């Protein structure tokens, strides 16, 4: 026994190193399966407040871009205004009626931290549980998909960015509604990859990509980007297309969080269906 203690004392540097390293590895491995590594997410209080303080100074530099973005959003909304349309049929015109039931609502939020230079990127938003944000809500901007809420604290939330290896989005090609899967493969943060496009589909440069609406997270027809290039990868039977994303992840400043009001109903129904359904 005494020899054992002497042994440990003699090599305490090594043993202490082992203990710390095992703690770190345990945290890394367990986080792959459990979402409880709460301390390590920027929605936690300490880093949330530091980022918010920093952001309150640094966001003055983005004011010009933010203004342009808001103008563009406003323009798009004005285009949809009822006054822009001429009523050609005087007999029936109802704008809001019981036929239309609201499915999505939107919350606006500010991005207080983000990254684009890692393999798995995250963002932090300045709103959290208190403002009605819950995990698995979608995050979009006026012109594109940005990510999905992962963790929320009272005042902040962590977003898994589109630039994350675990982030798969069901998308479609605008002109012919063919479905594919969007997943970032690293490297350039402005381009991502749409795979599993059937090889008979007619593609051309500049084709628009939208969300398919198959997921419970994003509404249909949210713009994602445009096709730049495509190929058949070795050993595959599908087209894989390079998509230039519409939003600049490095400049994200204001976002909208999408709340799906029929989410539970949707989940309940699909959980009743046997077999795996992938989203």
């Amino acid at each position, binding site marked *: 026994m005494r020899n054992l203690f002497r042994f440990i004392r003699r090599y*305490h*540097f*090594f043993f*202490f*190193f082992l203990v*710390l*390293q095992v*703690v*770190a*590895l345990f*945290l*890394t491995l367990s*986080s792959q399966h459990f979402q409880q*590594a709460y*301390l*390590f*997410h*920027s929605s*936690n209080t*300490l*880093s949330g407040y*530091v*980022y918010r303080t*920093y952001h309150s100074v640094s966001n003055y530099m983005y004011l010009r871009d933010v203004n342009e973005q808001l103008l563009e959003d406003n323009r798009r909304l004005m285009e949809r205004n009822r006054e822009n349309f001429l009523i050609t049929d005087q007999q029936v015109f109802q704008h809001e009626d019981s036929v239309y039931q609201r499915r999505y609502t939107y919350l606006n939020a500010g991005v207080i*931290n983000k*990254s*684009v*230079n*890692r*393999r*798995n990127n*995250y963002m*932090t938003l300045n709103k959290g549980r208190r403002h009605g944000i819950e995990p698995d809500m979608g995050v979009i901007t006026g012109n594109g998909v940005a990510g999905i809420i992962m963790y929320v604290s009272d005042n902040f939330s*962590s977003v898994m960015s589109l630039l994350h290896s675990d982030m798969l989005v069901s998308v479609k090609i605008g002109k012919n509604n063919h479905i594919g899967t969007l997943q970032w493969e*690293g*490297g*350039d*943060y402005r381009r991502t990859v749409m795979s599993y496009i059937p090889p008979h589909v007619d593609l051309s440069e500049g084709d628009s990509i939208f969300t398919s609406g198959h997921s419970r997270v994003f509404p249909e027809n949210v713009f994602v980007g445009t096709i730049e290039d495509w190929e058949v990868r070795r050993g595959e039977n599908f087209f894989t297309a390079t998509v230039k994303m519409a939003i600049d992840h*490095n400049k994200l400043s204001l976002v909208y969080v999408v709340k799906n009001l029929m989410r539970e109903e949707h989940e309940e129904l699909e959980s009743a269906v046997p077999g795996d359904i992938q989203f």
Partner: protein
Amino acid sequence: MFRWKLLLMFFAIVLLQVLILNNVYLGGYINPQVYVLFVLILPFGTRGWHLLLLAFFLGMLIDVFEDSIAIHTASTVMLAFARPFVLRLLTGKQPDDAGDVPSFRTLGTMTLLVYSLILILIHHLVLFFMEMFHFRDFTETIVRVVLSGGLTLLFVIIGFVLFNSPTAKR
């Protein structure tokens, strides 16, 4: 006196890393990890377990800010573990004054360069491979290690130049 300076440097270097350097975008591959300078610049006589514990908390704080789960903790602890061995390898023996910190004066330019280079490489290898989590994109990860490591080394050397004068007069 010296302890307060270290504490100040600890927080200054974390803020420098997470608020400024992590927002630098250079081609999607390069992300300098300048916070390792803190472990590199600790005095020669720092006790082993102080070294490891400081590295552990430094890495953990970076992880908290970067949303990365314990990968900086693991790589910084590895760096701290390797430090005494690299020092012994390069200098042969412990320097006479245990309170001295590694600098151009105490180690010499060439030794300081090699010392920083080896430890930065160890740190970046662990970090980027843990980030990929498997060896699928082996060459790409090696490219990231080399490019980011080079830039980190440059910043660390600048750091040594900046910290050289006050500690020499201490």
